[in-house]
């Protein structure tokens, strides 16, 4: 089973690589006339989006965007294709291979550079988008994630931020100050050691720090910690992790694994253990449901949040970004639809559906952000955003990161050796 899965993954990667390579040589279709009266514009735009679930609620939210768009463009038909991130790569690749590419593509942070490099996305500069305009209307923090070779290829829609959460009661019980949580590697490790609970045989019964990840997925924790140690993963598309800080970060993670938390430990719902007090401190998301249908108000009241700050304070941010297909025959209409998707009301609905926050300059004012303390915290700190990705082959390299980081954490390989190997694979 595992072998067939591996073969499948390799097969998909090969097929995708072939298709994307083919795309590099294809020229874009001619752009529609820019002076067309919106009331008279006709055509169909195809929208690929993992940002709206295919539920009744998700479809209603998308339809609201379409209705708004159709007020200005009454004769333009919008065809949505609701996808998931798990299969987004295959959807994009097969559509390009068939010559029936999408007009609007919603992808994630880390996806823009690989597809922009393959000429799958349109330079939004053709529609008047600059770093300045993006920074004014959207989240400035996501500009690097939207940029390839100094050009903007995507418009940020929602931000999926990460922070560190802790239980105030657990801190007090362990003699730690909840008003002054640790933020450095050294401080976090010392606090985690105090907070870790063990049985008589020395087995960990309650981890002192929750990495909130399963085996094979420690990559994002590494990226976040590396940034807190002063190094972004990539700078201008070049690797920036094969260095002293990279080795230090990876070795720090190794020193925590099976010391303050068993490797790959998660709760049954695969959600941050800090939310449910199964861990007193650890990585959390960017939104929490404090209602009784969620974790409950009592849990929320006991939670505090901080950002990693070994040498600089950082907040990891992912999210949804919208691009115009480079081969679209209706690029202006596609861009107009992205603008409709980026209205405050549309982003509010999208953020709610995805437990994220709107990627707007005034995100802190949105109702979804105000609805819970965690969203307020991450929205306030969006200026400290860092992101994973930046290489044009990031979608392939990130899988190598997953297995290689595990090897170091489990003591199978040396951190410097692994990072050197990953550096040679990055381009």
């Amino acid at each position, binding site marked *: 089973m595992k072998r*067939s899965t591996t073969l*499948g993954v390799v097969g998909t990667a*090969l097929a995708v690589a072939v298709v994307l390579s083919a795309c590099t040589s294809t020229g874009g279709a001619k752009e529609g006339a820019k002076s067309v009266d919106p009331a008279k514009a006709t055509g169909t735009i195809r929208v690929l989006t993992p940002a709206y*679930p*295919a539920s*009744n609620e998700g479809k209603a939210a998308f339809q609201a965007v379409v209705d708004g768009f159709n007020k200005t463009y009454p004769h333009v038909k919008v065809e949505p294709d609701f996808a998931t991130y798990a299969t987004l790569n295959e959807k994009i690749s097969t559509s390009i291979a068939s010559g029936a590419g999408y007009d609007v593509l919603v992808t994630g942070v880390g996806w823009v550079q690989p597809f922009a490099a393959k000429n799958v996305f349109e330079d939004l500069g053709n529609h008047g988008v600059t770093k300045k305009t993006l920074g004014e209307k959207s989240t400035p923090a996501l500009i690097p994630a939207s940029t390839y070779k100094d050009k903007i290829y995507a418009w940020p829609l929602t931000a999926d931020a990460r922070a560190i959460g802790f239980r105030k009661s657990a801190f007090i019980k362990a003699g730690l100050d909840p008003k002054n949580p640790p933020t450095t590697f050294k401080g976090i490790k010392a606090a985690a050691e105090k907070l870790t609970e063990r049985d008589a045989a020395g087995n960990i019964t309650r981890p002192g720090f929750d990495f909130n990840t399963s085996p094979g997925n420690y990559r994002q924790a590494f990226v976040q910690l590396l940034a807190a140690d002063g190094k972004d993963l990539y700078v201008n598309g070049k690797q920036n992790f094969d260095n002293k800080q990279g080795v230090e970060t990876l070795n720090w993670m190794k020193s925590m694994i099976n010391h303050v938390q068993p490797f790959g430990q998660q709760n049954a719902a695969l959600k941050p253990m800090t939310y449910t007090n199964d861990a007193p401190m650890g990585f959390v998301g960017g939104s929490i449901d404090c209602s009784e249908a969620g*974790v409950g108000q009592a849990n929320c009241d006991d939670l505090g949040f901080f950002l990693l700050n070994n040498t600089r304070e950082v907040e990891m941010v992912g999210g949804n970004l919208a691009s115009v297909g480079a081969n679209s025959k209706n690029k202006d209409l596609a861009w107009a639809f992205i603008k409709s998707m980026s209205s405050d009301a549309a982003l509010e609905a999208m953020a709610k559906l995805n437990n994220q926050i709107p990627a707007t300059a005034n995100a802190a004012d949105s109702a979804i952000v105000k609805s819970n303390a965690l969203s307020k915290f991450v929205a306030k700190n969006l200026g400290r955003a860092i992101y994973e990705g930046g290489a044009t082959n990031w979608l392939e390299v990130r899988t190598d990161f997953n297995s290689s980081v595990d090897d170091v954490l489990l003591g199978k390989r040396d951190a410097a050796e692994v990072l050197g190997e990953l550096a040679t694979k990055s381009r």
Partner: protein
Amino acid sequence: MTSPSTAVQAIPGAIVPTRRRKKRVTIGRVALYLVLTVGAFLMIAPFLWMILTAFKSELEVARFTWLPAVWRWDNFVGAMQTAPFLQYFRNSLVIAVGETAVTLAICTMAGYVLSSIPIRGGKFLLNYFITLLMVPFQIILVPLFLIVKSVPLFGGNDIFGQGGTGWLNSWWGLIVPLAAAPIFTFLARQFYVSLPSELADAARMDGVGEFGIFWRIMTPLVKPALITIAVFQIEAAWNGFLWPLMITTTDDLRPLQLGLAIFSQNPASIQWPYLMAGTALATLPMVLLFVFAQKQFVEGMANVGLKG
């Protein structure tokens, strides 16, 4: 009314069934039952977890308890109301029935030919089918997509398969490409090859044509095999995810598995109770299918052998 005492009286001359000998309890037998019990529990545990999780709240899933504090039957209602699941059920049914019908028609004929008809290159064809068994679906995904998109005279395509969408977003595209998998041709061939060739020879002597031998003589003898193939194909079609996702964009055609993916859209906040409620309902037809076809299914698997 017969009293119990008279009922047990022995009738002279009648054969009295001997009492079943009690099997001795040995360490080996205890160990065997222990292993089987553990094995059975390991098999059942995921299903049990699925059913119990379907009744829990989000918080109970996160904290892990075997039993929910309150049995939330409304999770099933909530899950089904999240999306048009009745339509998804119907679509899955159409795909499963359609693919199975085509499989039974095409693969049995191909299997019979490979097993019984001395055609030139038959050995090569058999090896070709065996090789195809080892090709992951992901490898052929993009080429298959292109073929389906380029089917002539469908979906606005011209005679050269250009200009339209071919079989994309159609029942044709959903059913035909996955309806004749090499595994089923190979399985059918294995069943036919196990039948004595004298039957076919005798029929030929009586003047029965080759299709008549296939249809009237040989195929009725491999009914358990047909059920095995049908069960396998229904299960594969019912659980199909990637291909329907690739070629459909509307709810009119999307099957149940794509509907269930809604609950895990955001990996960071999977709606476990709804996902498990939906999965439990989606699994039900497969469980019933296995319960009712269990005898034939096991017989078919036992007979499949690898006679070359």
